[in-house]
Structure formats: C-alpha cells, structure tokens
C-alpha cells in the first residue's frame, strides 16, 4: 500500500535537514565525511539548520536492524576509500580487522562425487588429478600460481562489517553531530509532485497484516530537505523509489547472489596468520564461489555465494555451506572449530547495470542499491563507502553555497563527482564482465579474465536473464541424476511434511548426510540459535507478504521456500507459503527468487521490517 492508498491516519511529523535510510558502509562514509564539517572547533554550528534555526544541521539516520552492528558480511576489501577517510587507520582499533597478508585463489575439486560438473570440467578435473604431483594438487585442491590483479586485495583489509559498523557508528555518535537510530524501519519515501520530501517510518502496534491493535502508533513522517537512501540491495525504500519514480532506461537488477557465512573459532594449534585470504571456486557446485578470511584471535569467516545464474530450482545455501566447509582443503583448518555466528545477505550483482537514478529532487542514492558494487573485482564495501563520501562532499558544497537539493544541483555536486572518479571508471570496465556466466562457469571465468585484461573492451556471453527466467523444473535440472518419479515422490513427501525440497533432493543425488556435532555442524534450525540469534519484536507487521495468494498456490517451484536462509518461509498444503517472522534474517533472497509477478512486480513483497539477526560478529 502506498501513501495515496492509505486511509487517513493522524501522523506526527518532525522536520530535519537530512534524513538517511539505512546504516551501512555507504551511510557510514556519508555521515563520517559530513559530520566532520558540521561544527566549528568551539562547538558552534558551521552550517546552520533550516529545519531548526539556530541549531547545527539536523542529520538523522534510521536503521532497520536492532543495532547498527548487525550488518551481515565478512569482507576483504582494498579499502581505498575507507583508508582515505581515515589516513591514520590502525586496523587494531577495529575488532576483527586485519591487513591482508596472504591471498590465494584456489580451485576445489569434488571429493564427494555429487557435484554437477560439465564434461569440460570433469575432463579438467581428471587432468588435474593425473598431474597432481607436478602441479601441486593437494587436499583435493589446486592453488592458482598467482592471484589475478583484478581480484587482488593488496594493501587491503579483512573486516567484519558488523564490527566495522559499530566502530564507525560509535565515532559518529560521540561527535554529537549526527543521530543514528537503530530499530526504526522506514516504510517508504514521501513523494510530493515527483519530489522526495522525506520518509515515513513504519507503523507500530499492529498485527501481522498491519492492522492497528491496542497501542497503535502511526509511523511518523520525517520531513527532510534531503533524503539519502542507502538501505542496501533489498531495502524497501530503494525499491519503493524505483517502483514509483522509475529507473534509467535499460538499467535493471537482473543478477543477484545470496552470500551465507559462518564465523568459526579455529581449534587451538591452527596457526593461520590474520589477514590470510582464500578465494575458492569449483565446489560444492561449479557455480558456487567461496571465501575464507582469517581474523585476529584465531577466528575465521567462511562462506559461499550462490548466484542467480545457478539454475537449480531448489537452490539452498545452508546445506551447500556445510558441505563447503568440509572440503579437505578447508576442513584441515576448520575441523574441531566452533561455530560462533552465522548470517546471510543478498548481493546486488548487476553492478552499474542495476544503477537507479542516483539523484532526484530531494533525494540521492548511495551504496550497493545505487549500483556501486564492482562485479569484476567482487568488491562492494569500499565502493559503497566511497559513494557515501562523494555524496557528503557534494552536499557540503551545496550547503555552503546555499543551494537547494534539486535534481540539477545534486547531479552537479554528487553524480558528476562520482562519474569522474575511480568508482565509475572501474564500474564501467566491470559492467559486462560476468555476462559469460550466462553460458556456463568456464565461459564466465574466461570472460572475467578477458574483460579484465582488455579493460572492459571485450566481454563474452550475453545480457543476463532475470533469475526467474532461468529457472528450470526439478525434472530438467536433475536429469540423469534422478528420475521424474523419484522427484515427484520427494515433492509429495515435502508438501505433506511442510519441509523444503533441497535436503531430500541433495540426499537423493549422493550428497552425504551432515554428521551434526552440535558445535560446528548443526541443523539449520539450531544455527538460528547459535552466536547471534534471530528475533522479531512484537507490534510490527509481517514484512514478507504475498500480493496474490492464488498466484502462490499455483507456483510450482516455491523458490522462496527453497532459498530462505532462515527457514522462515515454509510450504503449506494449499495457498501461499507460511511466513514466520521470528526466523527471518532479512537476507531478501525470497524477493529476487519469486518467479511469479503481479502487475509487473514480484508476487512476493519484501517490505521494511523490524528485528532479524542479533550478531555483531558478522
């Protein structure tokens, strides 16, 4: 429901100068840069507020999650933009941060025999095994002799985004120049005559459908001269703006990935230097990429990315992640470790091709949802941070000149700055670098290398299809592995039991059962309770809703169920799936996996919501 559709409800409102939506690296960069210029040395306002005359600029940021440190991502980054903001940065100041010291790209062979590999890959695997002694194949893995320059994170940092956000947020709050409010989801942008005039916060004291209950508090309207949207790739406000104001012709987010990771405490005696980084590919499926980052204190972040061009109709991530960490190359370090935390996040993998309008009257977009991610280097955090810095520099320029936040002024002050920077130059090179994956993994890998070495002049492959356009039926996908009758039987059992298909299908395909040890290998339900747990405060509406229930009933794949990171969406015998808000980690995979659309929009609606994962180690 949009503002126009809603019945009249009396809402309180406040006026600020700048309202930000979402606190992540992009907003961190924006607020860090801005806050340093808002007060004079004597504490007097360097720039006076128009919303509250006599006071400094009133800048406020609303974050959906219950804490600003609950961002989910372990990351290795070149950190060029971050280090430019903090020239004297000592990584030891940031918990779980370490300079990159050792980086390897590793091809993982399939030690299980259940991985779906093409003939080309199988032939390559045989060659590698046959020449293993010469090439140095060990632990079912082949370490590439060098890390391609476009992948290298030389002079960079291994970070926990949760801890990094806490560190940045703490400095911002102690400056007193800006305010950050976690636990406050933003429902939508306020738009008047095509101009964004602020945001509306979500209603509180409502039932699951959003109907008022005792204690109802209508979401407040926050009026602002400038609204900064940095709410990430599945953020409700960014998607709301795209839907209502449109996107640049030809630009669309068609490629996604779901990243899921474990934070693992290594067993005593494992001596891996903090800052050690492995990028892996080849296992558990050729389409799935993995990472292994070593933090200080014997802690590692280990995870995988399942891309939208992985055509499996029952794509799961959790089960694959459990097989991934047991690969001999990694298990030699991880065996005997203890799971400290877990998390999942969607990644916008279209990069510049998914760029929305960066500016408009009264608003600007920054970060991952603004298409800042570099899809060739697989780098997003530093680019997001830099986009925030660039906006802040532009905003300060406009404020000092007394110019309003019109589309033209913001285009000149922010967009032009971004276009002229390394962010844009590198994004253009990367733009088509992943097109080859539309035709397969091998073509994709070659395509990335070709794009990198020709500086974007040459690319392989074709324009990406939408995730839902690529999905094939389970019968097609498992052809040669499972008979249609077997699949039908499994589907029936899962429908009756309300469980997802992927575990049963993977079992049937030869993936061994996970031997749960209660410490590192735990059930999907138990992982919701380990380290950072998942919760949902009462009084908020369900943020996952199904627009047309009949459409859900007809849906054959129910990908929202299969890919749900927290098993929050489950099958029902009839009608739409069930949604359990208390298990949702806000990864947003359900949104981009919904194969059904109603009036041009996914039938599954992913709105702003409260709660989610409580973990700052991610």
């Amino acid at each position: 429901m949009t503002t126009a559709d809603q019945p009249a409800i009396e809402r309180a409102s406040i006026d600020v100068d700048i309202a930000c939506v979402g606190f992540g690296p992009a907003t961190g960069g924006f607020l860090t840069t801005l806050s340093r210029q808002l007060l004079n040395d004597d504490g007097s306002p360097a720039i006076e507020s128009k919303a509250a005359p006599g006071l400094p600029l009133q800048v406020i940021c609303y974050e959906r999650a219950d804490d600003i440190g609950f961002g989910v991502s372990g990351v290795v980054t070149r950190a060029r933009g971050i280090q430019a903001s903090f020239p004297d940065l000592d990584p030891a100041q940031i918990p779980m941060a370490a300079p990159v010291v050792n980086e390897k790209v590793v091809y993982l062979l399939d030690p299980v025999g259940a991985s779906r590999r093409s003939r080309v890959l199988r032939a390559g695997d045989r060659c590698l095994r046959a020449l293993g002694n010469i090439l140095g194949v060990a632990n079912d893995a082949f370490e590439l002799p060098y890390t391609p320059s476009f992948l290298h994170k030389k002079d960079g940092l291994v970070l926990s985004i949760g801890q990094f956000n806490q560190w940045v947020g703490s400095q911002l709050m102690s400056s007193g120049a800006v305010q950050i409010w976690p636990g406050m989801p933003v429902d939508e942008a306020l738009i008047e005559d095509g101009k964004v005039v602020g945001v509306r916060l979500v209603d509180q004291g409502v039932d699951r459908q959003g109907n008022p209950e005792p204690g109802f508090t209508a979401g407040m309207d926050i009026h602002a001269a400038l609204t900064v949207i940095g709410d990430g790739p599945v953020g409700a406000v960014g998607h709301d703006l795209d839907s209502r104001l449109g996107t640049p012709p030809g630009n669309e987010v068609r490629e996604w990935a779901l990243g899921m990771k474990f934070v693992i405490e290594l067993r005593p005696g494992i001596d891996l230097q903090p800052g050690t980084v492995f990028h892996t590919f080849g296992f558990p499926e050729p389409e799935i990429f993995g990472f292994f980052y070593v933090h200080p204190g014997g802690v590692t972040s280990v995870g995988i990315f399942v891309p939208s061009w992985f055509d499996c109709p029952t794509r799961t991530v959790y089960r694959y992640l459990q097989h991934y960490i047991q690969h001999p190359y990694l298990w030699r370090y991880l065996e005997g470790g203890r799971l400290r935390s877990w998390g999942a996040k969607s990644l916008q993998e279209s990069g510049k091709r998914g760029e929305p309008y960066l500016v408009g009257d009264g608003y600007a977009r920054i970060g991952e949802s603004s298409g800042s991610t570099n899809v060739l280097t697989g780098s997003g955090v530093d680019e997001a941070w830099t986009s925030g810095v660039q906006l802040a520099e532009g905003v300060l320029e406009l404020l000092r000149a007394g110019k309003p936040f019109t589309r033209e002024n913001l285009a000149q002050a922010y967009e032009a700055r971004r276009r002229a920077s390394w962010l844009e130059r590198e994004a253009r090179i990367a733009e088509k670098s992943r097109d080859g994956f539309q035709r397969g993994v091998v073509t994709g890998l070659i395509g990335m290398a070709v794009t990198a070495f020709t500086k974007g002049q040459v690319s392989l492959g074709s324009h990406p299809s939408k995730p839902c356009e690529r999905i094939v039926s389970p019968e097609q996908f498992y052809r040669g592995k499972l008979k249609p009758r077997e699949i039908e039987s499994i589907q029936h059992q899962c429908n009756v039991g309300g469980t997802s298909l992927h575990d049963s299908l993977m079992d049937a395909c030869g993936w061994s059962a996970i031997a749960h040890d209660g410490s590192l290998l735990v059930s999907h339900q138990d992982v919701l309770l380990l380290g950072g747990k998942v919760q949902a405060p009462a009084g908020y509406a369900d943020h996952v809703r199904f627009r047309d229930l009949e459409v859900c009933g007809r849906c054959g794949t129910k990908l929202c169920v299969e890919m749900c990171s927290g098993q929050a969406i489950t099958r029902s015998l009839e009608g739409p799936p069930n949604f359990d808000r208390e298990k949702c980690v806000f990864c947003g995979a359900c949104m981009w996996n919904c194969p059904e659309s109603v009036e041009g929009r996914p039938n599954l609606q992913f709105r702003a919501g409260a709660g989610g994962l409580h973990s700052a180690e991610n």
Partner: protein
Amino acid sequence: MTNPYHVVVCASVVPDPLQTLEPITGPSGPALKNEMMLPAILDPWASHALYEGANLVKHIAGSKLWLVSMAPKAKLQQVMMTVAQKVPLQLVAVDGPSSGFADAHQTAHALAAAIRAIAGIDLSRLLLFGGWESASRSAGVTLQLIGEELGIVDQFQGVDAITPQEDGSFEVLERVEGARHQVSLCAGPPAVLGWATGNLGEPRNDPQVGMANMRTIMPALQRATVASISADGMRYSNVATPKQQRQTRIVKELPAEDIAREIVQWITQE
C-alpha cells in the same frame, strides 16, 4: 494531591541476551570473552523499572526521571541509541565496568555518589528504582546497597505496581511465594523499589522522544565520571555459564499434553 517524585532508575548494561557468552579469566579477574565486541542492551529487569518510572512521572505533575547507569562509555552510548527512543529521561553516566563481575559494594558506592551529585535532586522525594534481579549475574543486591548508602530504610523487592495515594503515601505490590502479591502502604518517599516485571509493555520507539533525549544524553556521556572499581581482595573460585543442551526436532500440531509428557520424560532422564 500527590507531591512530585524524583525518580532515579539505576540500570546496568548487559550483553544482548541473544549472544552466546563465554566466561574467561582476564588480567583483572573474570570477564566475558569479546565483551566489548558484543552488542549490549539495558538490563531487562531494570528496563521494566525505567518504563514504570517514566509512566509514574508522566502522571504526577512536577516529577522528574533520571537514568543512572554505570558502563563503559562506548557501550552506554550504543545502548542509548535504542533506549533513548523509549521514554523521556535524563541520563547520568558513570564510566565503569558492566561485566557483572564488579564488586556490588563498590558499584553501589559509585552509583550512590552519582545520585547525590545530581543537580536539583531532592533526596527526600527520591524513589530509587531498579531491577530486583539483574541479567548480568543475578546478584540482585546492588540496588539495596545503594539504598543503604543513601539512608533509605523503606525497601521493596519484586515490585509489580506502585499506586500513589491522595495523602502522599503509595501502595506497593510485591511478589511473594504462591503467585501472590504482598500489599504494602508506604508513607511516602524516599523508598527503594526493585521491580519485577511491572505491568507495562515495552514502549514503542518514538523518534521525537529520541531526538529530545539526545540533546541531553550526549553531553551527559561527555561529562561521565569515571568510577574506580577495583578487583583487589576479591577471588572468584569458579565462573561458568549454565550448561545448555539443545535437541531440535520439528513436529507440527503436536497436542500440548504430548509436548508436556515429552518434556517431563526428558527432564526425568537427566
């Protein structure tokens, strides 16, 4: 007409209960592993006291509410980002440990000093609120010790309700065994009330309240006094978290009787 109260809520900061905690022995005694990395919240027991205190102040003209909290300043700042959205308050910050391993006497002494130093407070009008237990170690004695330091003899624990009377006295409901309440009539402040859960739900986040609070909270954090809490003379023989066992099984639509029977069976096996 009831005279205005000066309500002081003492509340510690504890690790978010959704985190897994691991005790370790640090240089100054027991500590929690990675404590500064863990997200923190206001002690849930004391949170009830805060909401009850704010409600009381709201309904009795002229009353005031202070939140007195001792924690590492950075943690307190983090917690205030959420708490400040709940109810109008004035923060009195004390920079000190919040691990739950600090000596209760020293903590009480530091907090009592901070209360005495509040500008404009009338100790004869004081209602000292807090949790009757704490999520940190459930020692539950600090509040009583603060009351003793301040010379307050009327102390109530396990409080679920306070009802001011026309004559200035107030009625207190205290939890007692047998799921009953003991009803007391107190002639008036000063008094110590250690709250159980009270009767109020968690207030909704209110951006206006947050913005108003933040104007005083940041200065309060900046002028936080540093409490010197020493571990000298203390010895912990053992520190451990409760043993957890988890056996997950998903069963749909199981009758309550069957669930109860299974739980009883599981407990008796232990």
